[in-house]
């Protein structure tokens, strides 16, 4: 009994209250969207709000279960659970049911289960377990590779479904690695790659390579404060350009500026490498290699974009980048979503008064676009308050994470924060037109049993770990 009491008093009630606020708010919005005076009695599972209510009760049952179980259980069970998760992901590829052209669902009688919602949870558990292990060193390449593999296996399997949205969620776990000491340069590298990826889609490859050259040259000059080398390279490149101009003018070389640029770049790179080898300038070596890698990357982007991504995903990215405009096609969802949120004004239209969401102008208004109802019916005040609560929960979870004495608990906590943050950022971002439309739910608000249950369990495992932080030391 004594243990139970101390456990209750150690629970972080602020997180629980924020969670309850979000869950209640979410349910109210699902009710507002789906309620109609013509609807039959409340207790009919036909209605989404009734279904969601049932799932909330189910989730809370699991919360009770979590608090009954010994906290060490979650660490011990990590690997078997992970194995089971991987099995489920493989199973869903074989026996799964396709909804919206993604084979993500296993139908069990009256309920559909989405294994990818649960594998996030087990992946965090295993990652926490592995990173908190004695022998783990963040500067050891083998360890980093294993850590990345833990993330990539489920992500890759989900990609096969294919469910692009759920796949990229795993990318958020980089935040965990960063907190645990992953070299900032690697994150910076990934960030630069992302920028290059976007630039490749927006501007021509020719311009992009020129920009990369300039960026590298400036970076080197600034870092090493050696203007002479830069000037030498520019002079060298200038002479090469002049030679090629003469050749082209006399039809001795194909009139292809793209090819010429590549050749000049290549010759300059080789010359720089030779120079670097002679003078043993390591940095120059590194920079030339980065440049070559970046240029190579721009080619792979074209391939990924045109061959791996699906057409609707390409279209959505194009819409966000402003490359395509088609108000009744791909842009329709985002436009209707922005109209719904924008029309809410400062104080909103009031509970159940939203015409855009109620009359179904917004697609998926109970699941991925639930935030539209928040924006329309609760206005700027409600939306801002909602964002404050959400950000508050995330910050609170970071504080909880930092106060853990166990590395496992801290890493797990950061995993939860990363996943929630990513969902929140992408989901709200897409409804207000800051991100491409990627179909991932808004945790605790979106309609859907699997996601509600998975996120609740994910959060409360951490609250459970935190509650027993004083007794639990691995």
């Amino acid at each position, binding site marked *: 009994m004594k243990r139970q009491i101390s456990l209750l008093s150690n629970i972080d009630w602020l997180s629980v209250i924020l969670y309850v606020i979000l869950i209640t708010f979410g349910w109210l919005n699902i009710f507002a969207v789906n309620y109609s005076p013509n609807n039959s009695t409340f207790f009919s599972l036909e209605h989404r709000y009734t279904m969601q209510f049932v799932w909330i009760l189910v989730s809370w049952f699991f919360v009770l279960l979590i608090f009954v179980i010994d906290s060490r259980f979650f660490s011990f069970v990590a690997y078997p659970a992970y194995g089971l998760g991987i099995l489920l992901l493989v199973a869903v590829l074989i026996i799964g049911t396709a909804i919206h052209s993604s084979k993500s669902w296993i139908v069990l009688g009256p309920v559909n289960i989405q294994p990818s919602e649960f594998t996030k949870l087990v992946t965090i558990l295993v990652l926490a377990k592995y990173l908190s292990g004695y022998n783990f060193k963040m500067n050891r390449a083998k360890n980093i590779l294993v850590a990345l593999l833990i993330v990539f296996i489920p992500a890759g399997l989900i990609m096969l479904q294919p469910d692009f949205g759920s796949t990229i969620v795993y990318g958020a776990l980089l935040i965990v690695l*960063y907190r*645990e000491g992953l070299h900032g340069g690697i994150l910076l590298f990934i960030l630069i790659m992302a920028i290059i990826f976007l630039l490749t889609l927006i501007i021509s490859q020719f311009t992009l390579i020129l920009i990369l050259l300039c960026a590298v040259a400036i970076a080197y000059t600034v870092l090493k404060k050696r203007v002479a080398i830069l000037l030498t390279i520019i002079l060298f490149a200038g002479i090469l350009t002049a030679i090629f101009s003469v050749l082209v003018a006399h039809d001795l070389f194909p009139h292809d500026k793209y090819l010429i640029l590549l050749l000049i770049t290549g010759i300059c790179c080789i010359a720089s490498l030779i120079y670097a080898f002679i003078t043993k300038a390591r940095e120059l070596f590194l920079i030339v290699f980065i440049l070559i890698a970046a240029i190579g990357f721009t080619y792979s982007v074209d391939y990924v974009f045109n061959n791996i991504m699906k057409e609707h995903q390409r279209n959505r990215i194009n819409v966000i980048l402003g490359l395509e405009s088609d108000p009744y096609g791909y842009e329709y969802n985002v436009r209707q979503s922005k109209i719904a*949120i*924008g*029309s809410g004004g400062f104080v909103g239209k009031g509970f159940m008064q939203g*015409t855009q969401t109620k*009359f179904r*102008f917004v697609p998926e208004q109970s699941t991925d676009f639930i935030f539209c109802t928040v924006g329309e019916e609760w206005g*700027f005040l409600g939306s801002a308050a909602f964002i404050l609560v959400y950000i508050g929960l995330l*910050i609170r979870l970071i504080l909880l994470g930092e106060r853990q004495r166990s590395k496992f608990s801290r890493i797990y906590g950061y995993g939860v924060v990363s996943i929630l943050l990513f969902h929140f950022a992408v989901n709200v971002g897409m409804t207000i037109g800051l991100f491409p439309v990627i179909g991932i739910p808004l945790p605790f608000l979106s309609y859907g049993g699997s996601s509600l249950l998975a996120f609740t369990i994910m959060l409360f495992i951490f609250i459970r770990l935190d509650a027993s932080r004083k007794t639990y030391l691995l």
Partner: protein
Amino acid sequence: MEQYTNRKYIIGGIILLLGLIFTIKLFSLQVINSSYKLSAESNTRRMEIVYPARGLIYDRNGLLIAHNLPSYDLKIAPYELEAFDSTELCRILGIDIQTLRDAIQRVLRNPAERFNPLIKQLSPEIFGILKEKQFMFPGFYFSTRTLRKYEREIAGHLLGYVGEVDSSIIIQQPYYELGDYYGVSGIEYTYEKYLRGEKGRKYKLIDVHGRERGSYKEGKFDTDAESGRNLTVTLDADLQEYGELLMQNFTGSIVAIEPKTGEVLVLVSAPFYNPSLLVGRERDENYNELKNDTLMPLFNHAIQALYPPGSTFKPVNALIALQENSVTKNTTYYCDMGYHARGVNIACHNHVSPLDLVHAIQHSCNAYFCNLFKLTIEDKDFGSVEEAYSAWRNHLIDFGFSDPLGIDLPYEKGGFIPKPSYYDRYYGSGRWKALTIISMAIGQGEVLTTPLQLANYAATIANKGFFFTPHVVKSIEGIDTLNQKLMISHQTGIDTTYFNLIIEGMELAVNSPGGTATWIRHGDIIICGKTGTAENPHGKDHSVFMAFAPKNDPQIAISVYVEHGKWGATYAAPIASLMIEKYLTGTIDPSRKWIETRMLNSNLLNEK
């Protein structure tokens, strides 16, 4: 192990930054930018247009020419659509299954088409059948509008037709919206803003599937439709019908004007078409058929065709010569079977000689008018040939021969009276004189006029010196005064006494032995007329006649062109005389029925 603790600040900072960015974006979306509120309104509010009935059209005697019949557009509410018997629907609509499928796909696939009709302009009969069986076709509903119905299927060119607006019209005139009708030609075009009425609007709340969710703000902004104003045209429907009957086998035109007012009594352009063809679902098909017809039934000869006036031009040449004192009524000339001077030879027919001015008109003597024209153009009172020519030309402008007269119908053409500079370019300045352009003495050569201008010219002679701008609308319901421009008389500046000579000559031409058109003489009505033969370089000459009657109190002035009819007296004159008789007596005297029969039995449609 704890060396990376500081990284919590970076991660926390990123989260706070994200919250800040979202809040700022939401503020701009919800508070600063108000366009989303308007978009939301237009999303959920459907304006249903209540279409007004177009104004009715009556003839000068109050006979109904055009009114409206209801027509029905078939629409669908996609969300309420259920499986239905498509074969039955196709059978009722009289379309094939593929057409129906395409139409439904068009509406379902494209959100912009949500409220557009599936099938337009169903007839009341089809509507009746479908309405009875509407229960079989859930999700289908109707919207009502009206279409023109012609009580008298005449005067297609004058009435014009109504069509759907295109984007260029919408850009020019914001009143119109896609799907609206407007007058494309004829008086439907000119008097569009009176005929169309005012659209009414009803605002409904709708959901994304277009289902009604009640009226918007309790109908506070709804307005009723206002019917168009009724129009009375100057046309005499019976006479118009008779004119079309007479012209059924000819190409050409009849234009009749009431001289005292400038009101157009008849405006026939042959070949003509039934205005009912350009109404309803078959409109496009019929229009293309008419458009591609080699006889060009859509072309309005009466106000758009340009012909040489031929000998009908002689009276005005005589009037100008008299006014400029180039000749007197006693000036006589010999005619040696034509006019012969320094390389110019213009033939004339056999008639007594010499002739004075009145009898020269009676006999239409070419030689006389060549001499008269030479005196006018080389009048010593003027400094030069050019100045004399300009004076002559100005007189013609006063008669309305140059610019369009300004009839209240669209696309009217003007005639052509060359400027002196035209000849300067052609022959060089000072290098041309009367003989160079002598063919204009007898209405040939460069001069061109429209049939309307010729009728207006007949009216001017009947009025002895002035005319009113010809017009086709007599009154508009609820509008007291018509265009003031129509009420001003245009003076020619030629003395009335000179007109008496011309009228005498035109009277003799029809009523006295030796005249050019005596066979069409009417026992009781004194018709004053002038025949003409318009030279046609492309084939047989055109038959021309202009006249007015009765001589002492002119009620009707008329011009008739019959293409390829050769002599003015052969077709144009008898048609004009029949029209005059019909107008003045209401019937054709049995003693003249043979003239009518001869006209009805002639056919020049295939002449070239």
